[in-house]
């Protein structure tokens, strides 16, 4: 099955700093999504981005499907950005389109 690798596994930032999180896939995926897991454990959907670039406030994401990776950019980080960021993708040959998740990037933003 598809392997999803996220880097870095852990990241500590000072408030106001920018960061880039990366997600690599071992094979072609569609249905690529980025999530933020908050301290209560909820998965907050950030982006559905099978290809191209999207922006939402201080966050943006880019997926290069032909090279099997996606990037999540966080600009001017705030303490509320802390948490775990997951990417997930689905194998287009998989009729169920189940999402395969990476292991996450744990982000801590210090005031």
């Amino acid at each position: 099955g598809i392997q999803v690798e996220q880097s870095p596994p852990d990241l500590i930032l000072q408030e106001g700093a920018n960061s880039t999180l990366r997600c690599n896939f071992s094979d072609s995926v569609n249905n690529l999504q980025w999530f933020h897991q908050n301290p209560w454990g909820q998965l907050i959907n950030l982006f559905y981005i099978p290809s191209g670039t999207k922006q939402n406030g201080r966050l943006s994401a880019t997926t290069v499907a032909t090279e099997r990776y996606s990037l999540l950019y966080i600009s001017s980080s705030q303490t509320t950005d802390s948490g775990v960021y997951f990417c997930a993708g689905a194998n287009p040959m998989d009729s169920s389109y189940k999402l395969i998740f990476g292991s996450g990037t744990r982000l801590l933003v210090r005031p």
Partner: protein
Amino acid sequence: EPEVTQTPSHQVTQMGQEVILRCVPISNHLYFYWYRQILGQKVEFLVSFYNNEISEKSEIFDDQFSVERPDGSNFTLKIRSTKLEDSAMYFCASSPRGQGTYEQYFGPGTRLTVT
């Protein structure tokens, strides 16, 4: 904006007891999923459901698990005889699929604690 809801938010049960986790998917969605996340680990696929039947299940989804869409709105996950290792966060998701997007919309999760 429509959203997926799940109840209860937290359930504590004793080993060997049956639990039913409930989900209300977004109303015009056709594909439904359950995922789970053991504390500190990544989110894992359990089962997908379409047209009133299971379309795929993972190795985790053994005979102790079952899913049902009893009334056209609710989507439930039943664990017949819970084990300590079933303690996890369980997420329900739904997707419109084929309506221009394959995005999955996740509920807030049910935290299951088996003692």
